[in-house]
């Protein structure tokens, strides 16, 4: 079960070599672990009807390699915005995002796309599976995006094997040819997790992963995340408004009025 993740992680690790030179500068934490993801003074405001509504007012956040960090905050406190900024889906008004010792928020669009594709896995409250694709195809989607038609056809077999193993790992070994609408909420979220893991990402960014699930299923998902973190050293940043879930993480920070407070 762990083999797949390990192999993808080793692939991901090799691509980190380029960043190796710079992560010395970013330093290490007291625990001696490498800082994997860092937000420096992130600011973001939205404009609505001509009024500036500040959401993030200078967020500083450091995530160590292998850490499971939970960010809690009320609805509208900017949790999702922070996650989007970390994933470079959106641009910050000010501040920087660093991944593995490399500033990523000011990269050209295509490099950010590639980075998101390979190093940043995302899961969402509403799963966000592609409804036309089966569970397996959804898991394969990031790989398909990474590869052109020919290289895809060349490596198709190994990709499919990999994806099947990931689905097994999240407990959906038998459901791989089902469409999302044929799956339950928990199963959809598991598929989404498998998809996020498929390219072997450095960081998993989870946006309210249990927000749409009943308590029991939510607990199962949390357990899955924790086991991924524990067994494979996957770095996870999870935002949630559920304190009970958040407390299963190594560290919990609170987002209040656009700033991070330790909880």
């Amino acid at each position, binding site marked *: 079960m762990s083999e797949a993740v390990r192999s993808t992680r080793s692939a991901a690790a090799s691509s980190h070599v380029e960043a190796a030179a710079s992560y010395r500068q970013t330093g290490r934490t007291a625990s001696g672990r490498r800082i994997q993801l860092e937000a420096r003074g992130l600011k973001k405001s939205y404009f609505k009807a001509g009024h500036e509504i500040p959401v993030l007012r200078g967020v500083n956040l450091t995530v160590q390699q292998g850490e499971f960090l939970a960010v809690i905050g009320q609805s509208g406190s900017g949790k999702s915005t922070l996650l989007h900024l970390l994933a470079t889906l959106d641009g910050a008004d000010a501040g920087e995002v660093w991944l593995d010792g490399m500033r990523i928020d000011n990269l050209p669009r295509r490099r950010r796309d*590639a980075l998101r594709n390979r190093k940043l896995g995302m899961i969402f409250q509403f799963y*966000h599976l*592609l409804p036309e694709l089966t569970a397996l195809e959804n898991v394969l*989607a990031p790989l398909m*995006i990474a*590869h052109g038609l020919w290289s895809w056809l060349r490596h198709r077999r190994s990709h499919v094997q990999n994806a099947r193993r990931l689905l097994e790992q999240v407990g959906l070994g038998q459901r791989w040819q089902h469409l999302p609408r044929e799956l339950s909420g928990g199963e959809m979220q598991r598929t989404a997790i498998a998809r996020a893991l498929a390219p072997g990402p450095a960081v998993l960014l989870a946006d309210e992963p249990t927000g749409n699930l009943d308590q029991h299923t939510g607990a199962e998902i949390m357990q899955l995340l924790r086991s991924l973190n524990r067994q494979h050293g996957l770095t996870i940043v999870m935002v949630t408004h559920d304190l009970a879930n958040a407390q299963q993480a190594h560290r919990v920070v609170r987002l209040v009025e656009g700033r991070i407070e330790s909880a």
Partner: protein
Amino acid sequence: MYKYLLCWRYLRSRYIALASIVSVTLGVATMIVVNAVMAGFAREMQQRLHNILSDVVLESHSLEGFRDPEWHMELMQRAAGDDIERMVAAVHVPAMLSFQYGGRGEWITRPVTLIGIDDEAPEQAAEFRQYLQHPQNRKQFSFRLRDGGYDVYDHQAQDRGTPRPEMRHAGWTHRRRMAELRRAAAQFGRQSPDASSQQGAHDHRAAEDEQSSTPSVPDDAELRGGDTARPAQRPSRAARSADPFARGGTERRFDPRTEQHTGLVMGIGLASFRLEGTDRFLLLPGDDVRLTFPTAGTPPRAVDDTFTIVDFYESKMSEYDSSLVFVPLRRLQELRGMIEPETGIGYVTSIQIKLKPGRELNQVRDKLRALFPPQLYSVSTWRDKQGALLAAVHMETAILNVLLFLIIAVAGFGILAIFFMIVVEKTRDIGILKSLGAGGRGIMGIFLFYGLLLGLVGSGAGMVLGLAFTQNINAIADALGRLTGRPVFDPDIYYFYEIPALIEWPTVTWIVLGALGIAALASVLPARRAARLHPVEALRYE
């Protein structure tokens, strides 16, 4: 890679998009059918025209014609001998055709174009022969009346022609029967002036049904008993008509049962009319007609002579079938005084020139034009003569194509609208793909490729539909005709027995490519919009 997979899935799951390309399908199918029919029509018409008209014609501006056609031919042979296969002289002159129809001896007169053709010339246009009604005449034409055996079924109509039962009796059989009837009528004493005229006073329907023939006149007289003017008029009119034949009678007794006048081939439209889809004949081969035409010389006088119909000419071009009458060239020259008494050299009004295959028409025409003074002669190709007709067909095709392509363009806007809707519907998926690292180009590719795929499906289906329709166009027309009770394609009107259709592959290719292009173009704007969607907003989209 994901582009193609998603396109494929969208194609299979979004039937509304398929609905939007139905108009592309129909547009493509219609264009293919219309182009095929128009091309077939144009080709058929060109063939007909070309068969009737020779490649190049040298004509005199005057009805007098020009002297010594052999000299002209030699001149042309010297100038363009390499291009010319053969030349035939002919006389064209406007004439009046008169014949008597019905037991009452009604005279019918029609304007015709009289053509004197050289039946001695062995190569006398094969194209002319193929339109005749007697199989023997089609092989070896002569101006002698045949015993019988004229086609009852139109030989050009494959198996679809309606029979012409009256043609069964045509030929000497008909001539003898008519002569007998007329003699009997003369002996009966009521109609002696008419009968002695030995002119085609007859009722061909009566010829099939002999009983009705003889009493038809008394019947008529009784029916119109109140109309005293008519019986009173008849003898005088008959006497007038009989007059020109007096000389025939004085010299020698002409026996219509065994003799014929000079032969004549007549456009079938002059001798028949269509009634409820079948041809009814006013005249048949074996009947006599009179022709009145101007003599050469100034001022022209009218001369006339009696001819015996030996065959009908049916080119299916009603313009020709209802106006052309062919007689032997020598006889026409004699009658018109177109032969110099001292030398025996004739005059003709035109020389028909047939070119060797593959020669440039206009080039030869220009070469020949240089030979003769344009004040006296005109040299023209068959295209020049029927250019307006051909140009009209091409113009119609062009206009129809523009209109039909507009339909496809309208379909393009339908695709545009549907695509915008699909992009809106797929906003969240676009956000998901972007969060998974798909670039704007990739997203744009999905929709462009989708548009192309839809266009491919639409125009492909249209092509198949159009080609299938074209292949079976006659069966479809028949079925529609049976369904509606009215023939869709009435051969009576068009003179074609089948809808001519010619599939031109370059045209089909252009149509399909055009439709594909429109579908692809219509998807550009929605695809750009999809590519520019902000990922976070797209993800939040509900």
